[in-house]
């Protein structure tokens, strides 16, 4: 490897930092805020509890630890219940696998943005021609990712140290966060070499993330080896605040080194702009269905919708496989059963509670898929592909409605798929179906919440097109309320802003049908208004 292979790396780093200065700052600030809020609000909650029951904070912590250790839903979402009787361990648990997944997401998007997306827009070709080495682009984005994850890890350590945690353990925890980011940056680096489109590379990286999350969820609930084949499982296995083990760091380091080496080897084997997987020729004429507005919208959306459906079913399946573990918990744990029965809870109620949390989380994730589908018309418009289509005899209303219909159908399809996945794997484990209809009904009852969010997106699209992507802000708000609302002790009116919160009473609970009706009405009115307004505005042209 000659020195010239990396020529110009420094300039490229500077270019990336300039292009990304706001984006990366926001990501880091957001993540570190999430991390910093955890000790702050958890301490407040525990102190309040201690004062109320007149015991020490440590005792409250220990009591809650005992409950959390049997709470399969929390473990599936957050990670192994290690060292929960220490403040540090509890913070790490609350920050959880979900935050690690967000760190991974940041890295995947960072890598895709500065490799494939750049090549697609042709800018990379210019950069390469301007006397930079073949590996410089890769090296530059890797350096930026390294720096970003180091800052994130250090910041996290500082938060823990400031709370009074052991310095060494805090640094270990920060390091595990850094490694989490680096692992997924490396995974993305590989996929961007393999695929020609940023979208495919991002999709595959996200699929790996979903798989990693799922594996560790099962592994953590059942405390078995599955966590140990998941990158997310590795970094959580370090157990910074309990009995520390260090091998996960070495495994991670080795994995990152191998991945970066492979990416370096792959990058010189392909042309700029091309993937290792080449395009094949396609049909010279269009099938009959492509000639209708709906058929055309379907053609554009079908692969995205298909993969989201598969993903939803897969997520359901993963969590379905651990439902029976809840019964095991109770059977194994005499005193636990007594406590629960004292609280008037049966095993069935626990099971329903678990499914409620899981389906709500899947509804949240499926919302991202629904939003992606809802945004398709906007992407078409921005890319200049809507203009020639709307210059044919297809009306604006037909064009947009076709896409909106697909979005509206996607929501129940995703949710039913996840319900089926959940029920089937549970049935495989237990040997029979348990309350299949109830589970599907519970999955479906969440659909109006997804519709409402998509409807708002359509309204934005027709009314204030430059802010269409603001629908992601709505999504972020809903996600924060779902994931951190209780921890942040948000007041009820704020919590109630999330549509999903109004449709979480099934299975087993008492779902008020008024909220379902209101959500449907919001979706219908805002969607229809958006479509009408779209018919009256200028089209953006490329």
């Amino acid at each position, binding site marked *: 490897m000659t020195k010239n292979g990396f020529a110009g790396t420094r300039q490229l780093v500077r270019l990336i930092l300039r292009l990304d200065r706001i984006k990366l700052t926001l990501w880091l600030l957001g993540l570190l805020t999430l991390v910093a809020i955890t000790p702050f609000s958890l301490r407040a909650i525990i102190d309040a509890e201690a004062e109320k029951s007149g015991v020490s904070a440590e005792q409250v912590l220990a009591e809650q630890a005992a409950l959390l250790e049997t709470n399969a839903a929390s473990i599936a979402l957050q990670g192994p219940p290690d060292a929960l009787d220490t403040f540090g361990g509890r913070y790490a648990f609350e920050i959880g696998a979900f935050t690690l997944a967000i760190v991974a997401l940041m890295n995947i998007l960072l890598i895709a943005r500065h490799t494939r997306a750049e090549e697609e827009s042709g800018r990379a070709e210019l950069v390469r021609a301007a006397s930079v080495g073949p590996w410089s682009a890769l090296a530059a984005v890797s350096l930026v990712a390294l720096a970003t994850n180091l800052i994130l890890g250090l910041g996290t350590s500082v938060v823990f140290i400031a709370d009074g945690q052991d310095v060494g353990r805090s640094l270990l925890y920060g390091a595990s966060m850094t490694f989490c980011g680096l692992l997924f940056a490396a995974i993305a680096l590989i996929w961007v070499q393999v695929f020609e489109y940023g979208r495919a590379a991002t999709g595959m990286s996200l699929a790996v993330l979903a798989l990693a999350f799922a594996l560790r969820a099962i592994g953590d609930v059942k405390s078995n080896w599955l966590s140990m084949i998941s990158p997310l499982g590795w970094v959580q296995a370090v157990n910074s605040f309990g009995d520390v083990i260090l091998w996960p760091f070495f495994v991670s380091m080795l994995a990152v080194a191998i991945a970066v080496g492979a990416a370096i080897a792959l990058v010189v084997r392909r042309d700029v702009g091309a993937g290792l997987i080449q395009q094949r020729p396609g049909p010279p004429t269009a099938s009959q269905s492509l000639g209708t507005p709906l058929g055309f919208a379907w053609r554009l959306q079908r692969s995205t919708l298909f993969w989201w459906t598969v993903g939803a079913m897969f997520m359901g399946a993963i969590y379905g496989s651990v439902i029976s573990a809840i019964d095991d918990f109770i059977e194994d744990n005499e005193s636990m059963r007594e406590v629960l029965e004292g609280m008037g809870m049966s095993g069935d109620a626990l099971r329903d509670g678990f499914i409620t949390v899981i389906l709500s989380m899947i509804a949240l994730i499926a919302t991202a898929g629904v939003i992606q589908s809802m945004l398709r018309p906007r992407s078409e418009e921005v890319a200049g592909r809507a203009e020639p289509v709307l210059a044919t005899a297809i009306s604006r209303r037909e064009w947009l409605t076709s896409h909106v219909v697909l979005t509206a159908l996607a929501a129940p399809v995703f949710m039913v798929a996840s319900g089926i996945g959940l029920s089937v794997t549970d049935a495989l484990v237990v040997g029979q179906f348990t309350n299949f209809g109830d589970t599907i009904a519970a999955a479906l009852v969440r659909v109006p919440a997804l519709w409402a969010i998509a409807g708002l997106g359509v309204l934005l699209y027709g009314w204030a097109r430059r802010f269409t992507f603001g629908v992601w802000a709505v999504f972020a708000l809903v996600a924060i309320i779902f994931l951190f609302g209780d921890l942040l002790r948000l007041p009820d009116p704020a919590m109630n802003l999330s549509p999903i919160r109004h449709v979480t009473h099934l299975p087993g609970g008492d779902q008020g049908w008024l909220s379902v009706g209101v959500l449907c009405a919001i979706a219908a009115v805002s969607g229809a208004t958006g479509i009408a307004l779209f018919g009256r505005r200028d089209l953006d*042209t490329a």
Partner: protein
Amino acid sequence: MTAAIQVEKLSKAFGTTQALDELDLRVEPGQVMGFLGPNGSGKSTAIRVLMGILRHDSGNVSVLGQDPWTDAVDLHRRIAYVPGDVNLWPGLTGGETIDLFGRLGSGLDPKRRDEMIERFDLDPTKKGRTYSKGNRQKVALVAALAGNADLFVFDEPTSGLDPLMETVFQNTIGEILTDGKTVLLSSHILAEVESLCDQVTIIREGRTVEAGTLAELRYLTRTAVEATTTEPITAVASVDGVTGFVAHDNHHASFSVANANLSEVMSHVADLGIEAIESQPPTLEELFMRHYAVEPANGGVDKNNGVGNR
């Protein structure tokens, strides 16, 4: 007979940018209208208003006798449009894209489709992403030309075509004209305009500054003359219509003459006894330079009284 396209005092602003400022445009059925103007003068904006892609702020617009905004769907069955930047779907092949536009738009004659693909030497099995700029344009052109439209609206359709394909394009337009179709062609390629267009409309900063046949526009410009005479020539400098007079010596000078005054000036020079004379009609480039470069403040429509089809 009503005009195929009739635009009167069309204005359109984007925020503070006045893209179109009382633009006038009239295209008769069966005509090829060249639509010219410097970058950013508003050609694409005007075309998008004609296609119902953009709304206009004020003025009257009618296309094939209908309103391009309210009757868009009806109209689009009779119009074929090729935008300046052709963006294709990465996952659809060229053939699929052509069929899609045809079925959703002005129809598709399968025989003509295959003939056009053949003529433009297009590989219809390639995916959108893998086409070059010129080939993307060819996809849009084939889709437009294989349909049954009455009116063709082209926004710089050949900016990416090689000379061979440019010729194919010009020949094909020649053919569709014999079927009585109407064409509005915006272009920066003057040779193309010269060979295809009966009439041209030149716009600047959203206003029509000139409209008429190329011959009429030529007439409005000047002819370069270099002459040697037996009598001293210097007096010619003060004759009406003569500008840029440079005397090389007493009997030999170069100057340019407004075409409107050409015969008077020439008879004046003839009276001096012509020993040698050379004259050059304005090239198309010069014609356009004049309109593209001149400040438009007083270069508006009115100055060129009665020219063109107004």
